């Protein structure tokens, strides 16, 4: 039996797994492969890279649409959509890179939706379109842009993104959301749409000896709080909002480990440099390999989730919950994982003072055994295997009963 092909379109590379979006798409691809689909990852990159896979189009020149967005900074992904609509990006360019005709086109985030539709119409008329929504994009974009360019520009950007996003919802065959809240938003745009929820998730950490050793080298056996994040602006903003300035969170013989590219962004942020008083207690291991990250998570005294912006759900929350360590998180970070919010060692903190106090209070606790979530059904629901299981139904609905 020939394997049916699923084409994924994205503005980033899933294989890199350097941020939540890439990890999610990589996990979706893995899941589909394990379900005996052939998966082709393709798209148009919104950033420069040295290692461009053959199925991806390199970052285009945004100049032709700069007048529409005013400034392409932070709107690179939306520019891809605008370039396509204006005819500067051709579906043929995508066709040249894809050898087979896909049965399903999964478009992760709305940025490549216009290109995906054009590709389908011109080269693959029978393909079904899945819109993979990871967020309510226009709201998130507005809050990010506002920090840099003020309200007026942010509102203009949000309007552009909203149009792109709602177009994707209306013209797709099926939508995938990450939370109930996002599903309601999608249905408010098109109440007839089939929407499946595949929350963000993680895999249980599997540290190895080398990972443990590396962590020990980094932390010298001291208690530490862990913040893992990409350089995505909301990660930096959230960290500085909840933990910046004068803070008792890291007094005493403890450390803060900031892993991932968030570290660089935070290190170079003037608010961090001017106001964070425990800079000498912060370790920036940067982007670490998976075993080291898993060991960092496993050995952490507590895991911090200081997120303030964005819809969707945070896959770092799933990762933290799966680690069974103590957690201090904002309500926003717990979106999609609300049933864990009342657990004894999960602290919800929505003001900087409470966040700092919770971190400091956790450090006063001795090392605790892993949290057992037995009473609320364990941690199975946090795994990708569980969260992506609706995909089988999605593809069955779209491709017929053959699978």
């Amino acid at each position, binding site marked *: 039996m020939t394997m049916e092909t699923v084409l994924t379109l994205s503005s980033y590379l899933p294989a890199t797994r350097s941020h939540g979006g890439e990890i999610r798409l990589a996990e979706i691809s893995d899941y589909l492969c394990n379900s005996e689909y052939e998966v082709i990852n393709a798209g148009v990159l919104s950033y420069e890279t040295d290692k461009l896979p053959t199925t991806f189009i390199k970052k285009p020149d945004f100049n032709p649409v700069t007048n529409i967005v005013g400034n392409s900074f932070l709107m690179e992904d939306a520019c891809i959509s605008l370039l396509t609509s204006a005819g500067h990006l051709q579906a043929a360019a995508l066709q040249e890179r894809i050898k087979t005709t896909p049965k399903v086109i999964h478009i992760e985030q709305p940025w490549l939706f216009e290109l995906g539709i054009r590709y389908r119409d011109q080269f693959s008329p029978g393909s079904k379109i899945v819109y993979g929504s990871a967020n309510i994009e226009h709201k998130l974009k507005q809050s990010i842009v506002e920090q840099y360019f003020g309200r007026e520009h942010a509102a203009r950007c949000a309007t552009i993104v909203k149009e792109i996003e709602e177009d994707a919802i209306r013209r797709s065959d099926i939508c995938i959301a990450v939370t109930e809240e996002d599903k309601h938003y999608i249905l408010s745009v098109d109440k007839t749409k089939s929407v499946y929820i595949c929350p963000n998730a993680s895999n249980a950490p599997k540290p190895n000896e080398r990972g443990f050793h590396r962590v020990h080298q980094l932390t010298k056996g001291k208690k530490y709080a862990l913040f893992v994040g990409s350089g995505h602006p909301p990660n930096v903003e959230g960290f500085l909002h909840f933990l910046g300035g004068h803070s008792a969170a890291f007094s005493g013989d403890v450390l803060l480990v900031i892993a991932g590219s968030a570290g660089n962004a935070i290190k170079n942020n003037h608010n961090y440099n001017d106001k964070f*008083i425990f800079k000498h207690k912060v370790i920036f291991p940067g982007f670490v390999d998976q075993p080291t990250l898993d060991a960092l998570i496993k*050995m952490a005294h507590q895991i911090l989730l200081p997120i303030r912006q964005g819809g969707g759900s945070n896959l770092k929350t799933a990762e933290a919950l799966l680690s069974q360590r103590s957690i201090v998180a904002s309500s926003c970070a717990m979106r999609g994982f609300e049933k864990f919010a009342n657990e004894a060692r999960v602290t919800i903190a929505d003001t900087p003072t409470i966040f700092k106090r919770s971190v400091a209070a956790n450090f006063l606790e001795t090392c605790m055994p892993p949290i057992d979530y037995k009473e609320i059904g364990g941690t199975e629901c946090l795994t990708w295997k569980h969260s992506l299981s609706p995909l089988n139904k999605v593809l069955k609905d779209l491709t017929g009963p053959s699978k």
Partner: protein
Amino acid sequence: MTTYINVTTSSNWARPPVGIVRVEVEIAKHLIAFYPAEQFIPCVWDGNAKKFRIIDTARYLVNLKSLELGLPKKEPRISKDFIEFWPSDTLLSIGLDWDLGFVDDISLIKKTRGINLVGCCYDIIPVLYPQYCVGDVASYFAQYFIGIAAIADHILCISHSSMRDLYEFLEEAGLPNIPPMSVFRLGDTVINTDTREITAPTFKHSISERGFILFVSTIERRKNHQAAYLALRKIIIDKLLQEEYIPTFIFVGMKGWGIDELLKDIELDPVTTGRILILSHVTDSELSWLYKNCLFTIFPSFYEGWGLPICESLAHGKPVICSNTSSMPEAGLEHARYFDPYSPKDLAEAIVEMLQRDLDREYYDIIHKYKPARWSDAAFCVLNVLKDVTNNSPKEKHAILPIGIQSVLKTENVHLSERGYISSPIFGKASRLFFKCRLESKLNYQIQIEIQGEDSKSLENLDLRLRIFHDMEILKEVILNRLFLKSNRSQRFFIALYASQPLMVSSGSSGEITVEFICQCSSKVIFSDIRVNILPMKRKAINLFQEKIVNAHNYVLGRHDMVNDNNTKSSLPLDLIDLIPPVLREM
């Protein structure tokens, strides 16, 4: 039970004590001199060794007197040995502690020795008003106060205003357990010099016939000399007073930073030329003369932790016009005239209004109504806090040692009192953990060790031993019994170890012992958590304890040393439960 007073600041001081140095001096002096039964011992911080040493009390007091009299100090006598604190000891530290950079070290002493700690907050101006400070002092000031508040049993504050500032700051910073705080009122310093000796101060010819208004303070931006200058300017320009009634303004104080432009303005401004006199080096007798002969004083500071010049003025029987912000109303009470320091106009009006009063009547009222505060009262207040802290400290103190294995192995000098706690991963096929603890002779101690680890597969041939040394001689090799609690599901393991016999040190070997905990294994083992508890036992409990050990032996042998986590709770005999540390009981 001893109270150590950290006098590092004053013992290093080489001039007559002022400000915080004077507070440390006066409190130490009064506590030592007036309360000999309380065992107050002055000590100094050795920044290199990161430990305290005792300073000879008599020599310290003699040196203080020398400083006051302007005589040279003698070399302080400092003990060669470091202080070995006991859990019932208290450390009082009220000097320029943020400059000592010792918070982390004191934190370790506090955790390992379980001492009581009483600190002091004069103000948090560098945090609240960094613009008035040189360099980035805000950051290390904030670190200092967060660090000290996290470990202190009590913080003394010099005003309610400072206490409120500190409390709000700590709360906003998220400190979980803000320590108790209280206010102690500083003593007033009255300079007792015979002013008859001064017949003609060198500056006397520069003073207007109408007299002068005195402003005693370091000349810096926060003290707001600008307001005094602008108020005088306004009085002259707006003709609020007739020319012949305008007094001279005398600023007494060392020149600080950030005031060059103001001093230039004062020097060049034709309106105020000759009307403001700046005296940077005045002797005590000259200052005494100034207080005695001034019309009144002004103190327009933007912000203070207390307001010593206000009290000094009142103690000298002179009215004071001062700012209505921060702690200044606490210092001036109903005796001072207040104004808004952000309004030179307000100050000008207050000065004019004061000059129109019957000043002799004002002097009379102040002398009869204002009671200068005594340093002995301040010391008594501190003494009561120290007593409260000592009395309220828990009877059975647990010193906690949450430090990394690396530092334990390196220093071999980690002190535990009756109970120690070590948390760290251990790597390698053989690891040794050394720690020191002080045991009292003829008391029995129960030894418990709990270990948690990540991979129970690697536990084959794990050898765990405990050896106790005294003066480098092996005192005992303690046999440890073990209860394994292995989690089948996660491969995590938990081991509870306990000694078969209570540990008792003979009278000849009481005091400090070294405990060596040896872990050997055929493959690498990763321990995520090790805790060592050495708990004093009452005599009556010993028989019961030994009975339980027998039961435990039988139980362990019957279970082949290993119990899975599904049947642990139900099958473990109830009378063994308390041999297992709480954290493992819950598994």
